């Protein structure tokens, strides 16, 4: 293979990501067109174009469907991207924010805020503060969980295996603390906690989506700047260091990025598994391990998975919206199984 054919392969990989973006656009449109209100697609398009006078229609489209569709794509992108980065820096195919306790940390933070809110009811007029307290606590505790794992990484002689063990310890720690809170919670607070843990896009708003978008816009260029160094890291710490990568500093930068991406994603929609684990695998099978292609593709496939799951959550039982966290794996597992069987074991991990 010459450099020319390698460049041609790069163009094909970009084509795969572009196709996935096209599929995402279609799924996004379907997400806008579906919902319990069973609105005709023409009405939805008129409302989006701003040429509808129907106040009810405009409220449903602009306040419910658009935020949900945008949030599904953005949160999916954030989770897919953070999963890809974690799998690379920890050299482990099972790494994701869900399997390594970062989502569990967020869940604990949210539960803590829900319980505190129930114990210290805020006066009337404080509803906005209450609405932001749960996501903020979830974000902070996701960051704390990430910091705990990253702190182990700063130990002298820390290996990726040790970091994975630290992540799993973190998962059990926060799950135990969460169980303790659930045990202590009143029935009303327990119901709120359980619903939060399901993960739901119903909490979406365009303001919150803008925050997720801002984090993505800030983090993606920084990660792409490290793309070749992350690719080198796949050859092992020692070989990467020999090639000139400052492995410890790179891992720390990536942990900060993962913490921001996961924290902001789970803070607004709750814990959503599967996407962060599987989107990078799908991307890796289709575009390989050159991180210049893998990182954007993981984000796009994460967005696509969650967007399709969002549509599915509304059409499984017409008139009912299932929590998205329940649907992601139900939708994703058959697709992933098909891909594994068709593509074969080309995911890079054996």
């Amino acid at each position, binding site marked *: 293979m010459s450099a020319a054919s390698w460049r041609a392969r790069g163009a094909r990989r970009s084509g795969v990501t572009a196709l996935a973006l096209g599929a995402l656009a279609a799924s996004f449109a379907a997400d806008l067109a579906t919902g319990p209100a069973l609105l005709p697609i023409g009405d939805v398009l008129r409302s989006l174009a701003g040429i509808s006078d129907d106040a009810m229609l405009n409220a449903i489209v602009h306040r419910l469907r658009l935020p949900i569709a945008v949030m599904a794509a953005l949160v999916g992108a954030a989770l897919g991207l953070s999963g890809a980065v974690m799998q690379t820096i920890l050299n482990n195919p099972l790494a994701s924010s869900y399997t390594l306790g970062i989502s569990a940390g967020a869940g604990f933070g949210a539960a803590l805020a829900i319980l505190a809110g129930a114990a210290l009811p805020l006066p009337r007029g404080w509803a906005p503060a209450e609405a932001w307290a749960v996501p903020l606590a979830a974000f902070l505790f996701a960051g704390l969980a990430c910091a705990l794992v990253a702190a182990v990484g700063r130990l002298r002689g820390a290996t990726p295996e040790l970091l994975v063990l630290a992540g799993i310890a973190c998962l059990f720690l926060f799950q135990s603390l969460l169980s303790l809170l659930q045990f202590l919670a009143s029935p009303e607070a327990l119901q709120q906690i359980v619903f939060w843990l399901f993960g739901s896009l119903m909490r979406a708003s365009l303001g919150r989506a803008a925050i997720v978008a801002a984090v993505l816009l800030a983090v993606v260029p920084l990660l792409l700047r490290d793309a070749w160094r992350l690719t080198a890291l*796949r050859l092992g710490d020692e070989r990467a260091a020999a090639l000139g990568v400052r492995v410890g500093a790179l891992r720390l930068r990536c942990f900060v990025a993962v913490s921001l991406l996961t924290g902001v994603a789970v803070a607004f929609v709750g814990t959503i598994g599967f996407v962060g684990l599987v989107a990078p695998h799908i991307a890796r099978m289709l575009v390989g391990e050159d991180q210049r292609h893998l990182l954007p593709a993981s984000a796009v496939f994460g967005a696509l998975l969650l967007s399709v799951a969002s549509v599915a959550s509304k059409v499984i039982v017409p008139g009912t919206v299932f929590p998205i966290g329940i649907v992601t794996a139900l939708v994703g597992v058959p697709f992933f199984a098909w891909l594994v069987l068709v593509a074969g074991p080309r995911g890079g991990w054996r």
Partner: protein
Amino acid sequence: MRIGVHGLGVRFGAAEVLRGIELEVAPGEVLAVLGANGAGKSTLLRAIAGVQPHRGQVRWNGAASRPASGIGYMPQDNATSVALSVFEVVLLGRLRSLGLRVAPADLAAAEAALAELGIRGLASRRLGELSGGQRQLVFLAQVLAGNPQALLLDEPTSALDIAHQVQVLGLIGRATRRRGLTTLAVLHDINAAARFADRIALLCDGRLAACGPPAQVLCPALLRAAYGVEVAVMTGPDGRPVVLPLPPVENE
């Protein structure tokens, strides 16, 4: 690029793996590092490469900082479960200059390194699909693509057949002399080291037992001390020593 190693020592917990190593390697010179299993050969290379914390100093042309063009360090283990193509692995040798858009000079360097090792045909294959010997050639191409000033090679030919051993050791020797590189190579094959190296450093239990031309170092007494075996040393057709292990004497 003159490499100076002064008072180098490495400790793993209570075990002192290397102690008091003093070495000087000149540009254009190949130094083979020999020693029994566990003598500290790979640890010495890792310490010089800067990936192993150590006591003492490693100087590059008298300075503590590593050369800007980097050093070509090839560790022993070859990562396998990676979905990268051979071309991409070799291209990573140019990591210091790679950007989101890969420059033609970097692509040309990767192509030249693949051609130099005769593995252009492997370029589109995935690393995980290759044999151990082929992976060794790929990582050697990666090291050469970086155009380093020093080569630190940990058993670069351990998985190669005899034809490839001759080819690779010849190529490293020529590159060292032509480009004025400074080369340290850990080798297991004493006779290959005798043919290939200008000097040999013999490690014994973490200490430098001897360092000098092959004819000086490869003597029965030193090899007995390093490996615990009796050997006969003869002279080959090229005038270099040939080491022949002798069967142990059985007491009746």
